[in-house]
């Protein structure tokens, strides 16, 4: 599995994908940092964190779209599936490599709170919480993206479908207050990733929230592994 993590990670930076991801994330972070903190003169980093978390919807599909869809199309999945590696190992390897890219990106954005610290006194605990939240949210998005990639044949389809799914999970949040049907609103509330994420931007560290994100991540990775396994039995 370590070999897969390493290969996938290097592949992100041997192609443009990794750089594009880091660049867009830095750009978004920079724009909001400039408008809120520099021009706005605020030392609070929370609004930047929440803006970046929305940007993650748009850019996570870039990281995950290729992983399974492209491999299947170019048939390079034959290498992994006929090598002595388990399917959960393959899925986990791809997940961890994408997580590494995410961590590097989040690490790079630390330059903004650090420069805040040079000129003011930011709340470090709040910033730390924001970063934990972004890592958990990003990790969940990656797991969802990997799953979508594992059931599609084309990276463009994978990208758009992931985008659509993440958008739905985001928009469903705004539907909840207007719903009269109790069951439906309970379901949507359970699906609402941003509803859970808002705890982090409010400065609340809740074990239930962490467990929520980790279990959604696990669930989608499990689905992805099953989808890859299922293809071997496919009749098409």
């Amino acid at each position, binding site marked *: 599995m370590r*070999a*897969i993590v390493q*290969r996938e990670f290097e592949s992100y930076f041997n192609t443009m994908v990794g750089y594009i991801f880091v660049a867009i994330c830095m750009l978004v972070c920079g724009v909001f940092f400039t408008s809120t903190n520099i021009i706005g003169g605020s030392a609070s980093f929370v609004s930047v964190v929440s803006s970046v978390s929305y940007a993650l919807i748009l850019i996570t599909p870039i990281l995950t779209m290729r992983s399974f869809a492209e491999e299947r199309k170019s048939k*390079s999945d034959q*290498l992994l599936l006929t090598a002595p590696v388990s399917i959960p190992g393959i899925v986990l390897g791809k997940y961890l490599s994408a997580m590494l890219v995410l961590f590097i990106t989040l690490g790079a954005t630390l330059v903004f709170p650090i420069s805040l610290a040079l000129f003011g006194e930011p709340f470090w605990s709040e910033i730390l919480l924001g970063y934990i939240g972004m890592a958990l949210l990003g990790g969940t998005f990656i797991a969802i993206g990997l799953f979508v990639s594992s059931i599609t044949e084309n990276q463009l389809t994978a990208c758009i479908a992931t985008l659509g799914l993440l958008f739905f999970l985001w928009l469903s949040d705004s539907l909840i207050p207007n719903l009269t049907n109790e069951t439906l609103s309970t379901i949507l509330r359970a699906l609402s990733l941003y509803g859970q994420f808002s705890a982090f931007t409010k400065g609340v560290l809740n074990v239930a929230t962490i467990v929520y994100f980790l279990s959604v991540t696990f669930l989608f990775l499990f689905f992805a592994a099953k989808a890859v396994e299922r293809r071997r039995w496919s009749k098409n």
Partner: protein
Amino acid sequence: MIEVSGLYKAYGLNQAVRGVSFQAQKGEIVGLIGRNGAGKSTTMNMIAGYISSDEGNVWINDHDILKEPLEAKRHLGYMPEVPPLYSEMTVFKYLEFVCKLMGVEKGRIESHLKGILDEVGLEHMKNRLIGNLSKGYRQRVGIAKALCGDPENIILDEPTSGLDPQQIVEIRKVIQALGKEHTVIISSHILKELADICTRLIIIDRGRVVADDTIEHLISRSDAGRVLELNVKEPVDITKVLRAVEDVTDVTRQSFITGNANYRITQKPGTNRSEAVSRAAAAAGATILLLRPVEYSLEDVFFDLTQRTSLEAGEVR
């Protein structure tokens, strides 16, 4: 050792593989041959564990590919029809990755790869990006991939497709050398290529094994009789005289130049009446310019066998 028993695989309504069974032992180079779509690649993919069979079992060194996949795959080097390559990696990095997947110890990878790169003639290309390689070189990377980790069993799906004649000869030597210590299964749709290197041939048609034998046996087993070619200067047509020779079942005559004719003389299987034919022709006053048995080629055997299954399947071709 590779053992395959009663493999079935259907894609929708199309039954791609129907009950394929065979064994390949260490030291054997087994050739799988069949027309396009006969089920060769599907069979190989099932042996390698890429797709699952609907029925039947595959054992690699006594490990069931579905029940103990990791153990089985550790002993198998597979090169699919399209080599599974990553175009953004260099040849060396790619093969290093494969070695790691196959569980080669870190300290041994470099020396192990050096041997493989030399063997398939890729040493001078090892730092090139795979995406920039020609088809022939990609094919070689694919073969090198199957050798990584020194597995006892090697499956090569059309390894020489896309190679130039020089490369084909080189790769053939590599495969022959491998065959001494390994179990090798290799597929092709070019008979001659397999005939030169394989110790045994398995002919697959419509998802079934229609023959599994050595090449000599396949040729001798064929029920078409041996044919003699006779070229003579003749005063008169000698067809009747030739027909009268014992064991001759059919004679056809072609003549393009007056006084010169070509005969094809079919004899009963397992007989050779060339002496009697030459005597009969001479006695009829003909001057023999050429008399030789027409080689019954593997192609003929192949057509014979595959044609027969088509007829059995009720198809008119």
